[in-house]
Structures are given as structure tokens and as C-alpha cells.
């Protein structure tokens, strides 16, 4: 890495806010995905102004920049694919305002998702997007990836809760888009920037909506002897227009792994369970719980249990949210997918997943947001065994191709990042890419921000610019 740039960064921030030794950088080559890429330098700004100055400095040295929150992403979105400066928002972690009357909060990007809900709790409010990593992931990361979570079934993903952003553009300009009330004329700029995976601008401040906590919540655990019965139940709930707040499915193999780890109370001898939550007015919740139970029983649920208290409810959710951790006990590595399918296609898709797993000789666990049709097949493999990673990626690719084939898509909440960029032509034409590239270039013309993400790098998909991994030797005048 260019020492002159490092010295300038140290002078701009301080020595403790700039990492450049190999042993310090090693951690930052990973996120939650199977990808890895090493940054040349990692910086920890404290203010928007510092972010702007870092961006200007990097531009002067012709070095790319990637923003990063907690590094919990699952698509390589916050990895420095072509090296350069990694800008970590961990120290921009203040909740700047909670406006209970208007149900708004203003936060810096490094605020941990769960911390915002905790801070809003005294007002009876919370931040609705709840990714499994919510106790460690940051709201800046949620914005970049347009993160979801179990309860987005009823309340929508991150974009539905963001009303305004402060951005730093690749030339260092600071600009605000949207507004606190979330209702301006003109183009929906927050709608574009949320989910743009850090490829258009760096986000330095976020204004979000807060929701009022529901009066009543019931959490149901429906136990099935076949996966088909569980998936048919979800399809039927959708078809009967019953919309729970969350509807998660765990297959038997996965829930047994969770039981060994978390002891959440999932029945070990079942083929699948549905974790279904209904919430709202007390009277509405009672009616919805009855309707959900009826559908489950119609599809041969052998038991539908309602969590007796918050403790049991929390334990069930702990099991769900720690599922990926539980998988870590079964194999040295795993690859979590994020395909989405129409809910009406759930039964046939789960059958196909099992068939693909058998063919590739991989164990594929299923724990996912069934109510949204958002699958998270987990392919377990051993990267020490030569060729296993490649085979796992091949199996994953076949799964995602099938999702597209039945009318679905590649990613529901994890983002394209670097892991799915080469599959993008399954969905998008050259004309589609051309427009996306024009929009990209309108804000990030030199690919200074997060190069090598979203767009396929292979030939035939347009000329996607990616900066050289080797930065220029000296600053431009």
C-alpha cells in the first residue's frame, strides 16, 4: 500500500484510526459469506466531514473505497474486492435523535440495529427490520443491503422504513436526500440508494420510521411429519390471505442441530416446524391465531403449540436466529443462499432442493422466511477437502437458477455483492444492465466506491469498469 496515503490518513484521523499491518487487516478480508478479499488499509472515521475528506484523499490517490458496518453481510458486499481503503463505520455509532411524537429516529450508520429498538423501547416504539444478525449488524449495513428479517413479512424491509439519508458522494460532496416526513415530490432518491450496496454513495446519517409495539403477540409452533405438509401450509396461509407478522420454516435436520446447540424446544422427531407469529390488537390476534391453527391442522400438523409466555417465545426465536451458528457445529463451513420464489411454488421448490442436495452429496439445511418465499438453503461443506467449495458453489448456482426458473429471484435480503454478480444475467438483459450502469455512473463514474459488486465481471455483460487492485504510486495533482 502507498505509504504516503497511509501517512495522510493518519494525519487526517489519528494513528489508532488507521490499520495497515497485515495482521491487523486479516480480519477485514472476511464478512459472513464464503468470499474473501483483503483491503490495503482500514480507517475508522468519527464524523461525516472525516468521511468526506477520506473520500477526497482516496480519489487523489486513485484508490477505491468500500464502506463497512459490522461485517455480518452474507454476499461479500462489504469486502474490498479490488483492495483499497475500507471505511469502517464502527465509531459513527450515535443515535442522534429519537422523535417519539413523530415516530422517527436519526442515527449514524454504525448504530447496531438492536440498539435502536432498545433505545426506542421506553417510548413503546421499535425499528421493524430485524435481520438474524440484529444484535451485531449496523443500520448503515441494513441500508446498503436493504436488509430484511422474519418480521418483514408484515412490515416490509429496510427501504420501507427509511425516509432520509445523508450521503457522501465519490467526489466528497455531502448531500441530503429525502426528508423526515418521507413524502416529497420528485424522484424517490432514498428508494434508489437503499439497497444499492454502497456502489453509489457512502451513507453517513439515516432517518428511519419507528413503529409502535403491538398490543398483543402470539407465537405458534406448528409441528409436521413431512416437509410437504409444512410448505403446503404456508402456500395455503398465503392463498387464504392470512398475513402473520412472521412465518418461518425449519426442516427437521436443521432444527435438530439447533436443539443440540440452543435447546429452544423444537421437537427432535419432526420433519419440519413452522414458527408463526401474529400480532396486533388483542381481539385480532386471537382470531388470527385460530385461523392459522386451522390451516395448520388442515395440512396435518400433528401439534400446534402457542408459546405460553415471553420466555418461551424468546427461546423459540433464539433458536431461529442462532440457526446459522448451530450449523457451524456440523461442518467446517457453510454457504447460505438467499433465493426467493413465489409462495405458491414452495412445495415443489423444497422437493427440488432435496434432490439437488442428494445429487451433489451435500447436506442442505432449510431455515427460511417461508411467508415471503425467501429461501435460505444452507449448503454444508469442508473447504479443506479439495474441490468441495467449487462443488458447493455449483450446487448453489443450480438452486438459484431453479428459483429464477419458477419466477423468483437471486436474492431477497442479502444482496448481490460479489457472490451472485455472475448470475445476474439470468435475470437482466444487456439493456437492463446498460441502464443500471448509467445510473451507477451518474453517481460513481470512476467506480471509486465498492468496485466489482452487483455487475457481472465476465464478458458479454457489458463493459463493467473495475479499478485495478493496485493503486497509483503517487497522488494526482
Amino acid at each position: 500500500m502507498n505509504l504516503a496515503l497511509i501517512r495522510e490518513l493518519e494525519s487526517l484521523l489519528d494513528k489508532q484510526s488507521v490499520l495497515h499491518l497485515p495482521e491487523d487487516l486479516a480480519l477485514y478480508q472476511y464478512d459472513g459469506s464464503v468470499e474473501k478479499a483483503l483491503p490495503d488499509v482500514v480507517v475508522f472515521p468519527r464524523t461525516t466531514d472525516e468521511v468526506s475528506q477520506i473520500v477526497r484523499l482516496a480519489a487523489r490517490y486513485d484508490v477505491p473505497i468500500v464502506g463497512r458496518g459490522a461485517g455480518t453481510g452474507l454476499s461479500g458486499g462489504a469486502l474490498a474486492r479490488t483492495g483499497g481503503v475500507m471505511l469502517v463505520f464502527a465509531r459513527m455509532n450515535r443515535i442522534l435523535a429519537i422523535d417519539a411524537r413523530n415516530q422517527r429516529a436519526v442515527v449514524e450508520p454504525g448504530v447496531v440495529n438492536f440498539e435502536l429498538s432498545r433505545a426506542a423501547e421506553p417510548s413503546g416504539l421499535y425499528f421493524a427490520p430485524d435481520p438474524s444478525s440484529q444484535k451485531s449488524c449496523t443500520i448503515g449495513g441494513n441500508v446498503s443491503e436493504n436488509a430484511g428479517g422474519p418480521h418483514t413479512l408484515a412490515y416490509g424491509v429496510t427501504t420501507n422504513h427509511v425516509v432520509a439519508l445523508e450521503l457522501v458522494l465519490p467526489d466528497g460532496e455531502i448531500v441530503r436526500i429525502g426528508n423526515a416526513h418521507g413524502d416529497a415530490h420528485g424522484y424517490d432518491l432514498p428508494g434508489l440508494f437503499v439497497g444499492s450496496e454502497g456502489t453509489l454513495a457512502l451513507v453517513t446519517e439515516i432517518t428511519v420510521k419507528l413503529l409502535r409495539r403491538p398490543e398483543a403477540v402470539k407465537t405458534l409452533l406448528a409441528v409436521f411429519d413431512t416437509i410437504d405438509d409444512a410448505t403446503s401450509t404456508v402456500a395455503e396461509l398465503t392463498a387464504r390471505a392470512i398475513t402473520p407478522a412472521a412465518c418461518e420454516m425449519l426442516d427437521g435436520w436443521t432444527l435438530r442441530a439447533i436443539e443440540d446447540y440452543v435447546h429452544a424446544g423444537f421437537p427432535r422427531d419432526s420433519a419440519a416446524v413452522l414458527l408463526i407469529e401474529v400480532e396486533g390488537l388483542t381481539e385480532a390476534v386471537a382470531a388470527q391465531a385460530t385461523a392459522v391453527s386451522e390451516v395448520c391442522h388442515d395440512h396435518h400438523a400433528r401439534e400446534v403449540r402457542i408459546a405460553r409466555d415471553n420466555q418461551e417465545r424468546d427461546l423459540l426465536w433464539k433458536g431461529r436466529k442462532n440457526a446459522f451458528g448451530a450449523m457451524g457445529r456440523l461442518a467446517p463451513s457453510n454457504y447460505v443462499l438467499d433465493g426467493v420464489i413465489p409462495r405458491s411454488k414452495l412445495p415443489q421448490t423444497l422437493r427440488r432442493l432435496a434432490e439437488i442436495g442428494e445429487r451433489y452429496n451435500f447436506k442442505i439445511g432449510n431455515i427460511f422466511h417461508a411467508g415471503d418465499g425467501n429461501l435460505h438453503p444452507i449448503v454444508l461443506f469442508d473447504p479443506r477437502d479439495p474441490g468441495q467449495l467449487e462443488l458447493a458453489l455449483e450446487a448453489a448456482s443450480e438452486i438459484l437458477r431453479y428459483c429464477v426458473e419458477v419466477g423468483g429471484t437471486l436474492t431477497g435480503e442479502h444482496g448481490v455483492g460479489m457472490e451472485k454478480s455472475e448470475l445476474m444475467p439470468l435475470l437482466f438483459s444487456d439493456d437492463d444492465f446498460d441502464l443500471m450502469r448509467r445510473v451507477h455512473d451518474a453517481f460513481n463514474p470512476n467506480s471509486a466506491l465498492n468496485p466489482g459488486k452487483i455487475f457481472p465481471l465476465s464478458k458479454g455483460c457489458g463493459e463493467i469498469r473495475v479499478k485495478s487492485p493496485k493503486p497509483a504510486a503517487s497522488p494526482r495533482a
Partner: protein
Amino acid sequence: MTASSVHVATQLESIVGRSHIKSSPEECAAYSVDNCIPGVVAAPASAHEVSEIVRFAAKENLAVIACGSRSKLNIGKPPARYDIALDMTSLNQIAHYDPADLTLSVEAGMSLATLSTALFEQKQFLPLAVPFADRSTVGGAIASGLDSPLRQLYGTARDFIIGAEFVTGSGALTKSGGRVVKNVTGYDLHKLLIGSLGTLAVITRINFRTFPLPLDACGFLASYPSAAGALALRDRIANSPLAPSTFEIVSPRFPHLFPDADLWHVCVGFAGTAEVSGRVSRDLLAFAAETNSVSAQILEDQACFTLWQQIREAIPNLLSASPAMCIFKIAQLPGELPKLFSSLAKIELPSVVLAGGSGAFYYGFCPASPDLQLLSGTVASIFEICSEQNATSALLWCPTELKKHQNIWGQPRQDDGLMKRLKFAFDPQNILAPGRY
């Protein structure tokens, strides 16, 4: 018809066929926008034909404005140029509907009324009850960016659009999003089309998530001597567990709604089982008493239905009775509305207000005199009041002549530059509805 317009019409005929071209002055006048009349009207029957027309227009540097029923076509600044009107009403089919998945893909020219009928058969609906609902097309409803009273529960279009297909200013047929309810694959370009007034692309198809028809709907009506009381009820409901499907505050003497009343009215809609409705009714009546309402009552099915239809059509009815009416759409945080309402009251014009629960509201008045300078001054004062209080405001309906004196989008915004960059990315030659933003 000039020689050049004959050339244009001939070329367009080769794309869509002679029967889908209108070129007589009378026919073209029906497609005028702020008194600008196109040289020719083309009615494509497919997305491919739309693409061909726009490619031709780009080659010839002709300005194109896409339209559906034309009920909201005058929203925006007058077009800088207008050569071809693109009548989208022949693209009027449901392209894909999976009721079991609650997802829908519909061509832009389909009327909302026809679509509603098709969804009703499956006991579903789209919460896009925009004004001019009996005429509006799906594409027009999205491109105009108007809200519906149902946003209280279902949000705005950005909350239930899941994808779109559209033709850019270079004639490329492109898409974004998809047909599933959760999707982060690629940029969310379809969200940019909402309220874009056709300036970015010509929408050919839109994908939505659909919603189950609610159970028996009920209504609630309370009246107050001042806006403060009505807003206090809004706050009370927002701080409760209730989740009404609709919420509107209507100012005194609102034509067609409460023309004779000197009171502010709050109209709330809700739905659910008998137990839920009973609970909501009890709570609302108690909240009305707490906030010192003059009267409060529960409305049964038919009365409720009629009232919501009237509220949905309140703006068209105002314009129909007083075509010179100036109507702003203003948005502010709900907690700041009392201050904004009192500042606007200082304008001292007979005005009407129709406010949703989110803080967005329509503010309308009839010009006191035909003097455009005077009217322009009044409009400027309203923009200034809003700007000072960090509210956003736009003058959506006003006499065309006023638009020569006043920027209907109000004061410049910090993100105007970013909007221009997007416009250039989508429409590099500036041929789609040029000048309207």
C-alpha cells in the same frame, strides 16, 4: 398539419398501424398539456411498439409524453416541447396474476376500475384508490405519484410495487425488480418511476403485491371546532394500538363533503371481525371524548363506503366545481402540523384542507382575483411558509397561466442536482416529458 408532422405521422403509422394514429387538430387537442398540443397521437399496442416509437423519437429528437386517461396530465410544469402523445390505453391486459402468491403484473394502460373488478373476483385488491379512480390507468396512478386514503394502513405505492418494465429515453425496453414480494437483486429503479410524471421512462408494465379484501369495513366520524382538536385525535390514535385503514381530516365548508359545516371533521376507516370492530369503535369514541369532540359517531357499511368514495374524489370534485382552484400537496411531520396550519391560516384566504394521518395534506384555495401577479405572490408566500418550517410543498393544480409566473415545485432543493443526473441517465436526450420537473 405541417410537412414535418406528416412525416412523423407516416413513420409512426409504420410502427403501430394507421388506425392507431390520430393527427387531426381536434384529436390532438384532446391530448393537450397546459395548452401545448402534440403534432400526433400514437396508440401502441405492445411494449415493443412503445420501444420502437421512442427510438424513432430519439432519432428525430421529438418530445414524447405518455398518457393514460389524461385525468392528471396537467400536474407538472408546462412541457418545454411536445411532439408525440403516447396513448397507452391499448396496453391494458393483466400480464400475470398469481392470486395464491398475492402478486400481479399489469400493463400500464389498464384502468384501475377494470383491474379492481378482476382482483375482486379473487377477493383481493390493490390499495391504490387514487383520485379520478373511475378513469385512472395503473400507469397514470403511478407516474402521477398521487396518494390514496388507504396509505394510512397500506403505505404508498413504493410499499407495494415489486417491479416494472419500462422504455427509457433511448428506446430501450428495460426492467427492474421482479414478481416476488421480497427482492434486492439490482437497483430498485422501479421506485424512481413513482411520481416521475413520465420524465424518466414510459412505463409499460407494473408488478404489485396484492392484498386480501378486508372484512366488513366500518367508519367513524368526529367533529371539532378547530384543527387543533382534529389533530389531537390524530395524535391520540397514533399513540394507541389501533391501526385504522384510512384516516382523513377535512376542513370546514369543504365542497361535496361537509359544505355547510363550520367544523373540522375526522374520518377514520377500519375493518376486522365483529370483536375487532367493537373494540376499535369503543376506543375511538373514548378518544373523541378525551379530545373534546363536538360529535362522534360510528358509520355503518354503506355510509362509510359513500364517505370514502367522496373523500377519494374530493380533489376532482373541487376542480370540477372551480377549475381555477389552486391546490398544493404539502407534507410535514404530523407533530408540526398545528404550527403549519396556523401559519397557513394567516394567508387569510378561504381555503380547504384534506389531511391524511401521515402528515401529507392537500391545501386548496380559489384565487380571489384574476390578477396573476397577485396570485403568484400568494403562492410564493405559501411556498415560503412551508420552506421555513421544513415542510415540502408543490402546487399540483392551478391555472396554466400561473405556471408562467411561478415554479410549481417551489423552492430549489439540495438534491435537485442528483435528480438531474438520474434524468440524464434515463433520458440522455431529454425527450421524455421535457421540462415538466
